[in-house]
């Protein structure tokens, strides 16, 4: 299974068409492959190898493009902004969300702003992906989607989605219910009830019976005779030769056993003796040599598995459009105006054309009339969408050369 960013995403296979890994990469070789792949995506590809027709016209060292909003000297070509589906847009660090507003607390494990009902989402491509039919009809453009589709030199029509823009703007509504408070007073009259109770006479005669029960003895008491007699003191003169010579006359600590003290074995002594015997077995176990190496060299395991070869095949006309959407404010109340800016750049190495930027506004965003502006010559139209809002559409007239970019702006009123 390839990592997520290595898998081809929908139809946009222009940047990398195929990555062939002959062998499974080992853990040490995978970062190298990632570095090579990422570097191949971020560095501009040489144009002379892809489009030899323009070799004569294009200079070898192109001037650095001056694009609005980008500091001079900062390369624009190849600075790819990864655009992911909406459910993946909330990964921190992956997509630079310009105005990311997060609450003070959110349940662990959730990504992105929370709770969702307090934020307005705009941008990205949620639910089913946007597709462009051969008749140039856009399908799958849902509410809150912002995409752009364009044509490449080899006749393909590609779709790029923008990033997600979050706007904290909770709107409160209310549901009313009016209930008549009915005052109903009633009195529970005591019901007259007569229930005569008869006094019943119950006579019970018990016959005295005689019962004889023979009880067997459950115990037996017997006088036990003394069967063991031990005398500690002999009659007559006490013996002074009870202990051997030079023997310590006091018991040691470990000798605190009844069988040692007075020769009478008790139950506790058995356990103590068994414990000490077990200890003695353990303590006296012979520890032998576990491993004997007899002229045998130790086997050394080395992890030298790695990828043997990586082939990266690039298609000609590596065209790609980057589209980024930002809002002028991270939070807005109903009635406020919010400006949106959509930035699009040709980050590929081939010209693209027929660029169409689509933005389907959410229900609570009302497009301010005559507020759409474009830095390039474009045809702007609006249409009603399913959320009773508008679907904004910019058709960029001119093709976009590599490194070219543009801006569109519009203003919305938060409902």
């Amino acid at each position, binding site marked *: 299974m390839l990592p997520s960013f290595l898998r081809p995403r929908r139809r946009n296979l222009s940047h990398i068409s195929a990555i062939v890994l002959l062998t499974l990469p080992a853990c040490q070789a995978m970062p190298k492959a990632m570095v090579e792949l990422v570097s191949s995506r971020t560095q501009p590809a040489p144009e002379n190898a892809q489009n030899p027709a323009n070799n004569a016209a294009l200079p070898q060292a192109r001037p650095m493009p001056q694009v609005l909003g980008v500091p001079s000297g900062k390369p624009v070509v190849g600075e790819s902004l990864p655009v992911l589906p909406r459910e993946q847009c909330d990964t921190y660090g992956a997509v630079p969300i310009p105005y990311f507003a997060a609450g003070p607390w959110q349940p662990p494990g959730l990504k992105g702003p929370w709770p969702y*009902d307090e934020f307005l989402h705009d941008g990205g491509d949620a639910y089913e992906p946007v597709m462009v039919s051969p008749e140039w009809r856009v399908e799958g453009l849902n509410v809150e989607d912002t995409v752009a589709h364009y044509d490449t*030199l080899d006749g393909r029509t590609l779709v790029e989605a923008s990033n997600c823009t979050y706007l904290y703007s909770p709107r*409160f509504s*209310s549901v*009313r*219910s009016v209930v008549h408070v009915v005052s109903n007073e009633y009195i529970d009259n005591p019901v007259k009830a007569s229930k005569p109770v008869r006094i019943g006479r119950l006579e019970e005669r018990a016959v005295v019976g005689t019962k004889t029960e023979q009880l067997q003895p459950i115990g037996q008491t017997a006088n036990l005779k003394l069967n063991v007699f031990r005398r500690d003191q002999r009659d007559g003169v006490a013996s002074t030769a009870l202990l051997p010579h030079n023997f310590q006359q006091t018991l040691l600590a470990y000798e605190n056993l009844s069988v040692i003290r007075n020769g009478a074995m008790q139950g506790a002594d058995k356990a103590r003796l068994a414990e000490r015997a077990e200890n003695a077995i353990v303590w006296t176990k012979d520890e032998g040599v576990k491993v004997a190496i007899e002229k045998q060299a130790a086997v050394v395991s080395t992890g030298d598995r790695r990828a043997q070869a990586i082939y990266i095949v690039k298609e000609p006309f590596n065209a790609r459009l980057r589209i980024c959407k930002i809002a002028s404010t991270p*939070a807005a109340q*109903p009635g406020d105006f919010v400006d949106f800016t959509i930035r699009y750049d040709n980050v590929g190495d081939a010209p693209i054309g027929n660029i169409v930027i689509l933005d389907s506004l959410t229900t609570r965003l009302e497009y301010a009339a005559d507020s759409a502006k*474009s830095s390039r010559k474009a045809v702007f139209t609006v249409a009603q969408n399913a959320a009773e809002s508008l679907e904004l559409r910019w058709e960029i007239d001119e093709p976009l*050369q590599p490194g070219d970019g543009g801006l569109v702006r519009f203003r919305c009123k938060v409902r």
Partner: protein
Amino acid sequence: MRSGKYMRSVRFQQAWAPAIVLLFAHFAAAQQPLAHYRYQAQQPTGAVGSQRLQQGGPVHGYFQPVELSAPKGVVIALADQGHWTDGVEGNVHAGMLLGKPYRVQLLNLPEECVGRECYPTIEIVDRTYAPQGMERRFPIPIVFNIEDLRLATEGLLVTRVVYIEDPQQAIPGAQEPGEQLWHDAGPTANPLEVADRLGRPVAIVRLGARMPDERQGPDWQFLYGSPPWVRFTPPQAVQFAPVPQAAPLKSVRAPGAADRPITQR
């Protein structure tokens, strides 16, 4: 000794039994309604909020910013330590605890109302999670309109459940500042359930004709123990700098590169 066929059957049943149970559980869950609120909005004040506190989350001890607004001329006062505070004519910004019932005093009602005062209750049942520093800018609006006050003073019980709209199900209509979109759920419907289907209920407002004791004033039970609240200053309106007009981009087209037709349509 079991036969092999019997053992295979047993293993098959052991393997598929959990899947079948999960499948039926899925169907059972799918048949449940979207919202199954067990509570009624007409429950005693504080019942719903106390249940919300038991569900956990950062709701204990949080003073939810609330903005009370009434028709022009109406004086709004809150209870503090068993006594009414000085009334304020206009919007009142306060922080209220979740699950605690608050009694509000509305004086100097319009002429359409029967009587000159009303004592609605406010119960915060959920909170908002505004970004840091914007909590007071987005309070829960509690709007007392003239119609509700008139119905309440006539002896009716008006229950209004304030909820946060689900953006996916938001009403397309515009909402101006100081206004609030609302609709009537009807006398037989549970407004709390209706609000839960359309969004997330955050507050319950009840307006009725209950009045405090004329001679002894509001007692402790009438004020629900006078729970603590915090008075907030009205937030200042945030002014955003206008966005500069888009300037035309400089041409970065390579010299000599002719515009090639991309796709002829």
